[in-house]
């Protein structure tokens, strides 16, 4: 199959401007500017059914259409704060195929008539930020960025901004706060960023992968894009495969059809090392609920909402594979410690709940926990649910409740025993 | 007539019988003040302000006893402990602690209200005053002496040895 996103696998030097241009690069932008009105671009993206790849899966075109027409300036923010445990797809896209992202962002900016694009990159990707800055300079030299882009009369600037290493800044409103120079704390919604975003102006925030899809849609049309993938989930998705697999890495696969966890893990990923049995799958890093690796799970075609029955979704598709040697309570402890460390501290349930849970896991680890503590863990997580300002607090519930539900035996073993670890 | 006289004689004997019976019975009175009657388990007598085993005062001067007191008999004024002059393990102690025993109705609400079990109604009940002002028991009168071998309060302690705002409920080290 040819890749839409990981095109360097087909065309090795796609990151170079001349190679990118030679392979249809910036044709999408040219087409948008010459053939389409901004609203048409929004319609094309809406018809393509492209869904946000950051995790929530919200249709990108619909999001763009919420932006008011008569308020200026408007902004596009590219969420490159890739900080979900187990995700490394945006990094590969920005390193190897940066112009596609820049082009996608510019098309989005044109569609909503934004005057600036901000690429918010996590602080640890400082080298990628430098790399992107160079690529942005190249694009500016070619006239794709700046005043009167491609003589269309439309001006747009592209900037990179480095985060300071907070997971919460991947949350779109916290990202905006951070970009404005404030504490990275999520905002209350409404108002949504589409009406009051960056500097209280209409703003579209999309993930790197989402925007990297846009040039393809513009060049090939919405129908061509819909042909890839399945139903409500058109297009391809990059799966970040990691954990107990022989060949971890990014794999781009179309939604639905033959794309299943079995294909991903056993065909693409080369199976589990040392002939061990697969035990569980974390479909979206720490944020989504764990999936027990049953045949039913392994053979379900992957689309958005495919795992609703298990109370989880593929989110950003950072698939972490856990084999039979992994103590799930240990894995849950790691995840809750992560959330406790990354909670911004704004709302009560998340700030206090994640801390409390991390203390309970610590007790379990030290062998002081009793059976009642498992119930307390579940209850504490349950009473965080639905009360937090942003998704971080809601996601922090998942590693606890889902692991207790699906793998109670791992917890029971830890009671009075302690020493949670990978066996 | 004789019958009547006999009847009276019997009555007298009956009466005397009762008298003699009680002569040989154990007396209900005790030789106070040489002797004391045994106390009921829940007898509530005069208050004492208790100390921890290390000799520090339990009272933190929170005035909840005064708030609970239905007779308005207690008066508390608090001050801050310092490492130079430490009375109690927490941040705060009672600088003034007075109970007006004339007002006190020995209901024990103060004991119930006390968060540190500092005030306890003990068994003393011999309270007599010749002046109303004598009925006001000050902190010095209420506070029990430090346990054997422990230094009295206030005392100088190493800085940082007490860093909690209120003492943990069991006896601090």
């Amino acid at each position, binding site marked *: 199959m040819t890749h839409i996103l990981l095109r360097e696998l087909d065309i090795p030097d796609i990151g170079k401007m001349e190679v990118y241009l030679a392979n249809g690069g910036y044709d999408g932008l040219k087409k948008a500017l010459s053939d389409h009105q901004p609203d048409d671009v929004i319609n094309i993206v809406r018809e393509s059914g492209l869904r946000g790849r950051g995790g929530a899966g919200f249709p990108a075109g619909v999001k763009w259409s919420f932006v008011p027409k008569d308020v200026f300036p408007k902004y596009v923010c590219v969420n490159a704060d890739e900080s979900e445990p187990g995700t490394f797809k945006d990094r590969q896209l920005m390193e190897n195929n940066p112009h596609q992202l820049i082009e996608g962002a510019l098309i989005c900016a044109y569609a909503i008539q934004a005057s600036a694009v901000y690429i918010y990159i996590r602080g640890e990707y400082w080298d990628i930020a430098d790399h992107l800055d160079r690529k942005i300079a190249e694009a500016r030299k070619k006239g794709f960025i700046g005043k009167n882009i491609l003589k269309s009369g439309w001006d747009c600037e592209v900037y990179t901004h480095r985060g300071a290493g907070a997971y919460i800044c991947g949350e779109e409103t916290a990202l905006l706060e951070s970009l404005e120079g404030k504490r990275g704390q999520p905002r209350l919604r409404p108002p949504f960023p589409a009406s009051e975003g960056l500097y209280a102006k209409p703003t579209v925030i999309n993930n790197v992968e989402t925007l990297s899809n846009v040039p393809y849609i513009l060049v090939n049309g919405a129908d061509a894009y819909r042909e890839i993938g399945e139903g409500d989930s058109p297009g391809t998705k990059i799966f970040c495969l990691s954990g107990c697999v022989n060949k971890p890495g990014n794999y781009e696969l179309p939604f639905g059809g033959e794309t299943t966890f079995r294909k991903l893990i056993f065909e693409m990923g080369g199976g589990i090392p040392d002939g061990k049995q697969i035990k569980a799958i974390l479909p979206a890093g720490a944020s989504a609920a764990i999936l027990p690796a049953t045949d039913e799970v392994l053979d379900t075609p992957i689309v958005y909402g495919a795992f609703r029955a298990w109370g989880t979704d593929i989110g950003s598709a950072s698939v972490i594979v856990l084999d039979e040697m992994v103590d799930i309570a240990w894995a849950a402890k790691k995840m809750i410690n992560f959330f406790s460390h990354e909670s911004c501290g704004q709302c009560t*349930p998340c700030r206090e709940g994640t801390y409390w849970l991390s203390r309970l896991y610590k007790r379990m680890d030290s062998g002081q926990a009793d059976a009642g503590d498992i119930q307390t863990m579940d209850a504490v997580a349950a009473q965080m649910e639905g009360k937090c300002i942003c998704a971080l607090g809601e996601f922090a519930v998942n590693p606890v409740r889902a692991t207790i539900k699906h793998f109670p035996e791992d917890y029971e073993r830890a009671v009075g025993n302690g020493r949670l670890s990978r066996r | 007539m004789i019958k009547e006289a006999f009847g009276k004689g019997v009555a007298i004997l009956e009466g005397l019988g009762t008298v003699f019976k009680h002569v040989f019975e154990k007396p209900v009175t005790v030789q106070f003040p040489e002797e004391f009657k045994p106390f009921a388990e829940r007898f509530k007598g005069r208050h004492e302000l208790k100390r921890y085993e290390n000799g520090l005062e339990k009272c933190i001067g929170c005035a909840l006893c005064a708030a609970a007191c239905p007779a308005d008999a207690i008066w508390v004024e608090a001050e801050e402990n310092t490492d130079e002059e430490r009375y109690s393990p927490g941040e705060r102690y009672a600088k003034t602690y007075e109970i007006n025993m004339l007002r006190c109705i020995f209901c024990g609400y103060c004991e119930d209200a006390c968060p540190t079990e500092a005030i306890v109604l003990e068994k003393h009940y011999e309270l007599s005053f010749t002046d109303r002002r004598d009925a006001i028991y000050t902190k010095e009168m209420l506070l029990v002496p430090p346990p054997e071998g422990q230094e009295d309060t206030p005392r100088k302690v190493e800085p940082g040895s007490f860093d909690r705002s209120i003492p943990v409920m069991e006896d601090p080290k």
Partner: protein
Amino acid sequence: MADTVKITIDDIEHEVPAGMNLIDAAKLCGVDIPVFCYHPKLGHDGNCRMCLVELGLPRKNRETGEMELAWFPKLETACTQKTCEGMAIRTTTERVTDARRAVLEFLLSSHPLDCPICDKGGECPLQNLTMAHGPGTSRMYWEDRMHLGKHVALGELIFLDQERCIHCARCIRFQEKIALDPVLGFDMRGRKQQIVTSSTPGFNSIFSGNTTDICPVGALTTADFRFNARPWEMVQVATICSHCPVGCNMSFDTRTDRLAGGRTTIRRVMPRQNEAVNEIWICDKGRFARHYMEHEERLTTPLVRKGGMLVEATWEEAIREVAAQLKAAGPNIGAVAGGRLSNEDLYALQKLIRGQGSGDLSAYLPNATGGEIAARFGVGVGTNLKYLGAGDAIVVVASDLHEEAPIWWLRAAAAARRGAELIVISGRETRLDVEASQSIRCAYGAEVATLNAMLGSLPKTAVKAGESLDGMAEAIVHAKEFTADAALKAAAKTIAGAGNAVIFVGSEGLTGEASRELAQASANLLAATGHVGRANNGLIIVWPSANGQGAADMGFDPGFGPGYQPVDKPGRSYGDIFAALADDVIKVLVIAGADPVYDDLTAEESIRKTKGFIVVQEMFLTETAKLADVVLPVQSAAECEGTYTSGERRVQRFYPAVEPLGESLPAWLITQRIGEVLGQGAPSVSAAVLLAEIGRNVPQYAGITCQTLAKVEEQFPDVGGEDLYYGGTSFQNVRGLGVQWPTLAEQVDAPLSVAPAQAGEVLEPADGEMIVVPVTLVYDTEALFFKTQLLHQRVPLPHIGLNPADAGRLDMVDGDLVSLTIDDHRVAAAAYLDERVPSGVVTIPRRLQTQGAPLFATTAPVVKLEKVEA
């Protein structure tokens, strides 16, 4: 009344204002939704999650096209909702009560539960809400709790208990949104998040104490209330702040103190809600400066000079002595009264002096005058700065409100943020300029000319409203002599076009006469544009003391009797009184509640020179009292009762809170006892009786009695009630909101007239000279205030302000010791280079220098003495 909508709360329909915050609306309906982070004055933040309710909004059914109530799947925060038609909430369902219990369990999981020793214990929202909605026990292991810093100093006034903090951010939001001093913030994140201060010195804000009131837990506490009393033990006594003309309503919280020998003592000062005056805020000066009242140096017995020494005497002796001197002096007497005295004190004093046939009465400081203009064109009854917003105008002229009247500054800035046009006209840039929409710099002394020019620049149509007034035509003709530049024209246009307009008339750099003309110029401008005689319109004089308006009302103005009634022969002005004293024309001078020797070099010289008899009524042995022949100890405002009249002409009553110290007496009683010996009649039974007498003799005060002053109306938002969510510990006003007396402009067919405002001369410094302008600072070394040790760190060192350009010309750097020779007196202080001081001007902070300074703007040569090595 705004538009109303119907909302359903717990299946009962209510009608509430549209667009109102749902929590406030529910409260109006008698439904309490518990909150921690929400505060009606601060708005919502949505972080505590305590106000979660089930929320339903009407939505169109896509199939049937009918409106139906759609309930949100999750619980929603009520604080982030605004009322709209058809909104429905449920606050008592199991989901909601479970959520509240969960949030409280979370909050308490890190709370130290040291309520028994916590200063907030007993008036703590967290305690109250835990009792009402919380779980009885916690499932968190005690040893799993986080231990953090206790009693961490944010500044020397405010302490933070990091364990108790529930991260509601009310304090941060108060500092950012209301105090406009964003000096607090969060550090770290998650459970490690803590409040920190970003200023040097720590928590550098004059409103810092308010954060302790609104803190919903005992995390923020004040330095002077630490372990001082339990809240339920104290008795709240209503009082009025005696430090500035705002007249903030406060409470003295008192309790008997064994350690003070059984005296009732003030344990703390709290704001008392009065939405028209101070809402629920007070400044730190009002809150913390109270300590002078119980200072050991307070005078407790009369002092009489014998053999050159002041020695203790009995009241009989002292009064006899004073009365004898007054009798001997006949009409050659005078009085200077400070604006800290109550209306009763002032009335009694003027009665004594006038009773002896003299009209030499001056208020102190004598800079601000124009009470009679405020009586005619002051702000209308019902004025509330809270209601000024978009479309309205506020003008502040010749005043640094932040230093002179902090709460007015706060409210003027808030009005500007609501969209009101804020025009600042002054000789130098002040903190209000940042909030101002139009900043106008004028030379010191050119303020009247500036306002005249503004009036003159207005077209005929804009001044139609004032046409019919007597003298307006002349005033406008006079005003047209002044030329206005574009900025002034724009400012004038703004005022003329404003819905409501208020002018704060200050007196920085002005003499008494000039400030009267400035008030007249302001009145002319307001009257011409129709901004007088109704609520939220008119002028407010920024008096240099709490009862400046009252002093003027009582006739401490050489041109007027009590109530601005005409006098046959005008008395001497302040300057003339001291000149006459120096020449021994005035033989007895009564100085009450004022310390001119400390402030004024000329006054000191006169008192030292005179053979006359000086009587001082004071709390302390001030610099003036040290030179007196008789010193009469008066009671502090906490010990006696009386009334103050605020700059907005609101007469407000304060009540006795503690027992008088020693033999001190109320000032009015001392005065009346002297009068008794002089045959002026027996003293009044009480201050209330005297107030009734004022009501009979001062027309403006007719009908003002203790009863009318004690009237209260329900205040919104309701703070300090049973729930304690909002005010924290601010108090409900139960002892009176005071009475604002009406101006002449509000009365039908009143003989109202204006007059041309005469612009004074702008000082022209000679070569090598500069203009010296005395300015006011909120924290200074004034005799009473400086007795409060707690605030000493905030009082700047003696200094003079100098423009860096001038300093460069004079070869001076920051910190150099410089001297000014003013009328043969020499003042030396460190130079403080400040770009906000205009070139050619030296500012001298009042009551900060080691010796007296000029009272009015003047010129003086600036001589450098030496460099002070750092």
